């Protein structure tokens, strides 16, 4: 026999990084299914295009050929696709995937090294490059199987915008001529206009709870985001500055997807639970500010990206208290 000699511990927990990644993918299956149910084949096409962009980039520029199998590129592609409107031109979705993967993750050194959530970097790029296409939500088609919007627009040709567009609940309330408040139940179930995966709060919450139960998601992050969003927006609503009710804030736009799946990206969120609370409260605060005063209807993406940039500092400031000490750091001379 061959005897292995290794350092202790000689047993390991069953969880592995690859398993965590794939369980995130699995938890997103209902969300993907719902987006196909609501938006038809366009949803599949947009998701496939953004995933292809991420996977191709990871395969060609990743640190090693095997890195594609760890599932992280798949998650980025899936999450990016879910933030896009159903009628989005496929070449743009593909480009978003390439940019998010390349500039959001690989230039930092691949898995575990990036500062910003790669899916959101991809989306931020698309938002800057194609502001019209990314805020164009086509109205419901006549038949389920019909394509929405302009999926097959040619690259670098201005997309021909579908004349019939429907506003999203957030846009409706903020920029609409005749502000309409979308019923919360519609937001909860997802029967409203919006990006592919942002509409059904229910399925996203279920997926998130499944991940939290398996220990693959830190529940402190979504909970702290919800608490701070609710409290801060409630304050503004109560004194009459904002027309958004706190509950509407929670269930509209990219809030659910962002809080459960984007902000909780392990690589770009703080290490300790204490840090996660700081991180989540910061996100909630920024979301409310951007939604009320910003020039965009949605603020979740920028809120998360801005807080991503703060993570190294949050980690520094929230070091755990060493056992057997008061936790107060001794003053170090010269530092």
């Amino acid at each position, binding site marked *: 026999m061959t005897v292995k000699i290794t350092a*202790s511990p000689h047993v390991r*927990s069953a969880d592995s*990084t*690859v398993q965590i990644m794939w369980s995130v993918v699995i938890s997103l299956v209902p969300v993907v299914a719902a987006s196909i149910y609501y938006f038809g084949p366009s949803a599949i096409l947009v998701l496939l295009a953004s995933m292809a962009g991420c996977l191709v980039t990871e395969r060609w520029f990743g640190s090693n050929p095997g890195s594609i199998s760890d599932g992280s590129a798949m998650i980025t592609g899936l999450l990016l696709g879910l933030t896009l409107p159903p009628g989005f031109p496929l070449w743009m979705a593909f480009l978003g995937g390439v940019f998010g993967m390349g500039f959001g993750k690989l230039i930092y050194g691949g898995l575990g090294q990036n500062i910003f959530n790669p899916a959101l970097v991809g989306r931020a790029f698309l938002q800057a490059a194609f502001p019209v296409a990314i805020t164009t939500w086509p109205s419901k088609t006549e038949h389920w199987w019909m394509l929405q919007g302009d999926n097959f627009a040619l690259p670098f040709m201005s997309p021909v915008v579908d004349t019939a567009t429907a506003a999203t609940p957030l846009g409706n309330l903020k920029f609409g001529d005749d502000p309409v408040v979308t019923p919360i139940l519609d937001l909860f179930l997802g029967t409203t206009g919006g990006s592919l995966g942002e509409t059904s709060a229910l399925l996203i919450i279920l997926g998130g709870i499944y991940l939290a139960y398996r220990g693959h998601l830190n529940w402190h992050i979504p909970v702290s985001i919800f608490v701070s969003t609710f409290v801060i927006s409630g304050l503004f609503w109560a004194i009459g500055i904002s027309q958004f009710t706190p509950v509407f804030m929670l269930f509209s736009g990219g809030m659910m997807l962002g809080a459960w799946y984007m902000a909780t990206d392990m690589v770009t969120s703080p*290490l300790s*639970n204490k840090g996660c609370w700081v991180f989540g409260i910061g996100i909630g605060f920024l979301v409310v500010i951007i939604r009320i005063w910003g020039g965009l209807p949605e603020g979740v993406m920028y809120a998360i990206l801005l807080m991503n940039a703060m993570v190294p500092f949050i980690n520094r400031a929230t070091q755990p208290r060493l*056992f*057997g000490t008061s936790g107060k750091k001794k003053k170090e001379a010269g530092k």
Partner: protein
Amino acid sequence: MKGLPSFKHGVHPPENKDLTSGIPSKRFPFPKEVILPLSQHIGVPAKALVKPGDHVERGDVIAEAAGFISSTVHATASGTVRSIELWPHPNGLMVPSIRISVDPNSSQMRRNRMVPRWQDVKDTDLSKEIAKAGIVGLGGAAFPSHVKLSPPKDQPIELLLINGCECEPYLTSDHRVMLEMPEMVYEGIRIALKALGITRCVIGIENNKPDAIEMMRKTKPADLDATIQPLTVKYPQGAEKMLIKAVMGREVPSGALPSSIGAMVQNVATAANVAAVFKTGHPLIERIITISGRGIKKPGNWKIPFGTKLRDVIEHCGGLTEDAAEIVFGGPMMGQGQANLDVPILKATGGILILSKDECKRQDILPCIRCGKCLEACPIFLNPQWMGELAKAERYEELVEDAHLNDCMLCGSCSFVCPSNIPLSQYFAMSKTQLKRIPKS
């Protein structure tokens, strides 16, 4: 399990104790040869008193303590000293060791009483007798017991804690001690209380040993001020600081010994063996050892003389199975992998594990995804993620001063939970070794 005292953080490795917990301990046959390293534990190596060709009886002193933190070595079987030579040690080094050819015709009866009755010894001299009998802590670190029993004068001990946690998976030797010789444990407690000049003691036992808790409760002498405290099953509950936190609710200050808050921890097996030494009048030369894992054909608990070679133990336990993959001295969380079948059993060896391929699957090391699970596992609230980065970059100074490497007890919880299989505790062990080589300025 809610409501039982414990400590914060920690991990839950699969226990695998049912492999051996129900098997009563049996006496192991005397091997043909015993190897007794002069350095069996922390501290200064002992000084050999015998030379090749000398005849020794079972229990004779063959090497004497060479300093305060050092301990006497005794012959564990009657026979002839064959040589004193460098021999493989379970820590992976070659260590000067006394090799004794065991006399096959010897009855292995021991000489007359070599240790006085403890009742006849003055309180202040008890720790001296304990040192002479070669008693060390049998919990794992093998710290000489007499050092612990002589705490600094300015730090009086108020409470004796008896450690029956046995939080390492697989190991059941302490469990068997509590089931098979509870009266010896209580006798040992009396001796320790006498040496410390105190009266109160608490016995902490993890709640996964209900039979041991029951047995200790049933046999508790009425006149002894002892409390049996069931504890949450969680690794590393048996670590000194964790046990003190669970029982007393207090944290031992960073860098200080338990005596600084008036506590002393002793393992149940140590207590039982202290009692056995004074009762039989013979020094510490054998102990109960768990032989377990799915890589050995007949797992069990055996009373084995120190110095017995790993090879003889495996042979007597039915040999290895087809898929045996790794041999470990100690528990799976902190034990040492063995490369040589000739290494001897030491006083500190509480178990020998032969793990099968399935039990010690090794996976590729992936990049850290900063999940923070190691922070949630570390029982002393370090930041293993950051420490791992510092260790990899060989930034030892920061590792010690800012990241508190010296507080790390290498329990392995961080490595255990790491989903990317990063060998964090190995990095920390290596860093500690590297730091020892750097001369202190």
